[in-house]
């Protein structure tokens, strides 16, 4: 179950997209999401999908790896599609019992599903081609202008990278705890919802206890190395824009302009 979540899972490959500055990829994700809301026509979505397909091809990440991320949103897709199909008013195509399907409903549902899929895929490209550490670095740098408002950008970025770092550790810990409790006859996958929730207690308490202990140890280790927040802290590998980063920004702007054009003209 945990393995299915592609969001936040880095896929190692040697590609142009991997080499891009994380700030470019953050901008890409943001602009791509905005572009999906620019127009609502068949051609708009086709253009957006083609652009994304190009990026995915450049990234050299296997397509099935990308699609795996969609599994977790299947339920949302189905629900939003159903709601649109049955609840949108318009020209009635089929009618049975109290339900009716309209032409407008079908169209809206299809657009909705396509847009959601593109949205998830677009952000999955970023998380698959950027290591979590680069991502937080990029976020920290991109948001550093917020510092004038006394917003603790560095602290948040640090918290985020620590949280990301802990995910695999905690997953392993959950595994070990579950085994230890199963050896004592605990049953994690049977019974009603309430029973299942109750069965989680013997797993959650040791998990919390050990998380607190780990957090404590980490804080001590950081303090022992004189960590005192972001003030005056330098980076071993500072982020620097290269030529291909500027080119990527250009491509991005051209894409957005084209998208607006397509939505107006076609």
């Amino acid at each position, binding site marked *: 179950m945990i393995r299915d979540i592609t969001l936040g899972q880095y896929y190692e490959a040697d590609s142009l997209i991997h080499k891009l500055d994380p700030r470019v990829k953050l901008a890409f994700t943001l602009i791509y999401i905005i572009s999906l809301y620019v127009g609502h026509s068949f051609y708009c979505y086709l253009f957006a999908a083609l652009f994304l397909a190009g990026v995915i091809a450049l990234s050299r990440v296997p397509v099935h790896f990308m699609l795996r991320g969609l599994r977790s949103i299947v339920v949302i897709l189905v629900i939003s599609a159903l709601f649109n199909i049955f609840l949108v008013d318009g020209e009635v195509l089929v009618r049975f019992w109290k339900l009716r399907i309209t032409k407008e409903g079908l169209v809206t549902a299809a657009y909705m599903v396509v847009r959601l899929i593109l949205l998830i895929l677009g952000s999955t490209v970023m998380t698959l081609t950027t290591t979590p550490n680069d991502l937080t670095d990029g976020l920290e740098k991109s948001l550093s202008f917020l510092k004038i408002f006394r917003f603790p950008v560095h602290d948040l970025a640090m918290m985020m990278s620590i949280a990301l770092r802990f995910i695999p550790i905690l997953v392993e810990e959950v595994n070990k705890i579950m085994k230890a409790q199963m050896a004592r006859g605990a049953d994690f996958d049977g019974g009603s919802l309430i029973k299942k929730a109750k069965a989680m207690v013997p797993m959650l308490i040791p998990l919390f*206890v050990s998380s607190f202990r780990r957090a404590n140890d980490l804080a001590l280790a950081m303090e022992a190395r004189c960590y005192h927040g972001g003030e005056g802290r330098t980076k071993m590998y500072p982020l620097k824009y290269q030529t291909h980063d500027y080119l990527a920004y250009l491509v991005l702007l051209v894409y957005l302009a084209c998208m607006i054009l397509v939505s107006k003209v076609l």
Partner: protein
Amino acid sequence: MSIKVDHVSYVYDPDQKVRRYAIQDVSLEIRKGEFVSIIGHTGSGKSTLVQFLNGLLKPTEGHVYFDGRDIFEKDFSLKLLRQKVGIVFQYPDHQLFESDVLKDVMFGPKNMGQSPKEAEANARAALKVMAMDESTFEKSPFELSGGQKRRVAIAGILAMNPDYLILDEPTAGLDPEGRDEILELIRTLNWSQRIAVILVSHSMEDVAEYANRILVMNDGRIIMDDTPKNVFRSYQELEKIGLSAPQVTYVAHELKKKGFPIDEDIMTVEEAKKEILRILTHDS
């Protein structure tokens, strides 16, 4: 009455083209009442192997039989198996969760369907066996010392009255005193209640003193399965895979080289003392 592992292999990720074996073609049989020790360095597959014995892991190939029945057959109750074959994992923190020690130890028996009264009686008995003082029964398990936590964790398994007790590195991180205490208690269990003990360890000293059979693991295979004396006699082979015989065995070998008529097979300090005294009194 035995647990039998028959040509078992375990592959980490079966989808991968290059198969990485954690366990490769291992067969063994453990009978009731034995004190077996599994040694091997980190990553040799010992912790993986013991998880087959009560069905926590399913081998990729091969079978595991409990009293002659395949434990992964559909109608075989894994819950019942886990009552008969208990595993105590390395870190007690992974299993202690209740508000007090007694309740925590009752968790296992209750899962086995015992009434609260029965469970409490079994829990109290198990805690007594593990030499826990009655004053600690009402304490939170998180207030205990490392050695006490470990003993409560073992009691949590013992309270289910298993026939086989598997201990994964039960002495890791304990001071010498706590270590001896726990190993003594385990030995008593093995003697007085005829519970088979399977001790996973990398400390030769522990293994030499307590086990009557040693399985040496390397790279997912069992490379020796013999009495401690025979295993340590081939200490050169042990060294090849990064293990070693107990320190006193080396001392005995050195003394023998220097011309003392000493028995090289000694494994414990106690034996060494007796042997050296014997030679000294014999000489004079």
